[in-house]
């Protein structure tokens, strides 16, 4: 496929690996923010190729994983409201709240439907005017503009039976929270590629400016990741922190301005609760007053009680980059993709799922 296959060239990858190994005169500690990167790094075996030179740790870039258990309970409770038809992306279905999952709710009779796009949810709302169609809005900057565009369309069509429960989150504040906590020592950040398509690579300027840490925005193919890692190793070794755009074919410095305007028009930036972090200021998106008629949180006010994380699950520490999945006592034992205990094992982007799929640490447990 165009724009993919060329970036998998094994000969060039070998050269880049050699260059990184030569330039890393001391071990360089990097965090890949994005869960998609964690999977790509495992899939292409980059950890092993760079062993001893580059240490890669996973970050909080998995929207499903960072959704707080109380917010999941909210979504599950909404699905149980008479007349409600809840629409969601597939990866939310099996994530455990404190009292089961959306899948459990569906088995008990709730009308929960999977959609590929929020536009599909809009279509369902048109087809079922007598039902209250709620879309579960989960995702980072990549996903939120599409939800915003869908809400604008719903408003234009006066589709009063369509609403969104917005659990959308912004990524730079989470990166700040990790660095401010000081729990992990990092020499560089691999910036999320598809978030940066929207925000622009400029959105990461605060990393060199405020934290003296370099950031390289990367795509999801081996050459994309290796060139980003190479840029970070050079910046770290020469102590010249900058933002590098290693995903030029997709990411512009200023991002997608139409998408940014959609976010601005539809959402207010508010504090949000992240699993593993607690509340992070200015890190969530809430529907603006002009869209209140489509705000599921206002239309179906439900009493929310703070809930505990699944006992023994260390997802929170994994999302903060403090530990890696095999350090969790349940990893590969009580918790597997078939029987996940925490969200990091459910989502395709979760670090526990990535480690499990590629067998890292599993052998230690059996």
């Amino acid at each position: 496929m165009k724009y993919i296959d060329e970036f998998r060239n094994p000969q060039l990858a070998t050269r880049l690996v050699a260059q990184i190994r030569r330039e890393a005169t001391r071990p360089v500690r990097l965090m890949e923010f994005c869960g998609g990167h964690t999977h790509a790094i495992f899939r292409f075996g980059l950890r092993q190729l760079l062993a001893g030179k580059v240490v890669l740790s996973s970050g909080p870039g998995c929207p499903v994983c960072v959704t707080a258990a109380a917010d999941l309970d909210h979504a599950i409770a909404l699905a149980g409201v008479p007349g409600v038809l809840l629409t969601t992306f597939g990866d939310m279905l099996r994530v455990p709240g404190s009292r089961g999952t959306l899948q459990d709710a569906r088995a008990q009779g709730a009308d929960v439907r999977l959609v590929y796009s929020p536009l599909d949810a809009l279509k369902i709302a048109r087809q079922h005017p007598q039902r209250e169609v709620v879309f579960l809005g989960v995702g980072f900057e990549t996903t939120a503009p599409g939800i915003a565009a869908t809400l604008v369309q719903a408003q234009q069509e006066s589709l009063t039976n369509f609403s969104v429960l917005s659990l959308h989150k912004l990524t730079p504040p989470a990166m700040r929270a990790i660095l401010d906590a000081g729990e992990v020592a990092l020499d560089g950040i691999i910036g999320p590629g598809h978030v940066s398509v929207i925000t622009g690579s400029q959105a990461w300027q605060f990393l060199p400016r405020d934290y003296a840490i370099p950031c390289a925005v990367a795509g999801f193919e081996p050459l994309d990741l290796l060139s980003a890692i190479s840029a970070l190793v050079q910046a770290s070794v020469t102590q010249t922190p900058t933002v590098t755009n290693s995903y030029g074919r997709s990411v512009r410095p200023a991002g997608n301005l139409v998408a940014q305007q959609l976010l601005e028009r539809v959402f207010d930036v508010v504090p949000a609760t992240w699993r593993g972090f607690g509340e992070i200021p200015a890190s969530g998106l809430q529907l603006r007053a002009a869209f209140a008629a489509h705000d599921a949180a206002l239309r179906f006010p439900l009493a929310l009680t703070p809930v505990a994380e699944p006992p023994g699950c260390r997802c929170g520490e994994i999302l903060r980059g403090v530990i890696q999945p095999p350090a969790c006592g349940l990893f590969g034992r009580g918790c597997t993709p078939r029987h996940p205990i925490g969200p990091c094992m459910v989502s395709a982007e979760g670090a526990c799922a990535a480690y499990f799929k590629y067998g890292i640490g599993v052998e230690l447990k059996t």
Partner: protein
Amino acid sequence: MCLAIPTQIKSISKNHNAVVELGGVQREISLIMTPEAKVGDYVLIHTGYAINLMSDEEAQASLDAFAEIALIQGESIAAF
């Protein structure tokens, strides 16, 4: 969740909608965030929306830079 796939636009209809082929299936997607996109262009598609226009020049610039690294290392890149 942030998965997005570069896909070629096959045709454009009214209301900023376009037809693309995703995994062998024809799908209608929205071009509302990429109003400049034309038939034949490649866009990244995420949850039913094109979120950018792929840049062929930038793709080529990256590939040229990789080839140069390979050359500087004194290796023939004839294999590729």
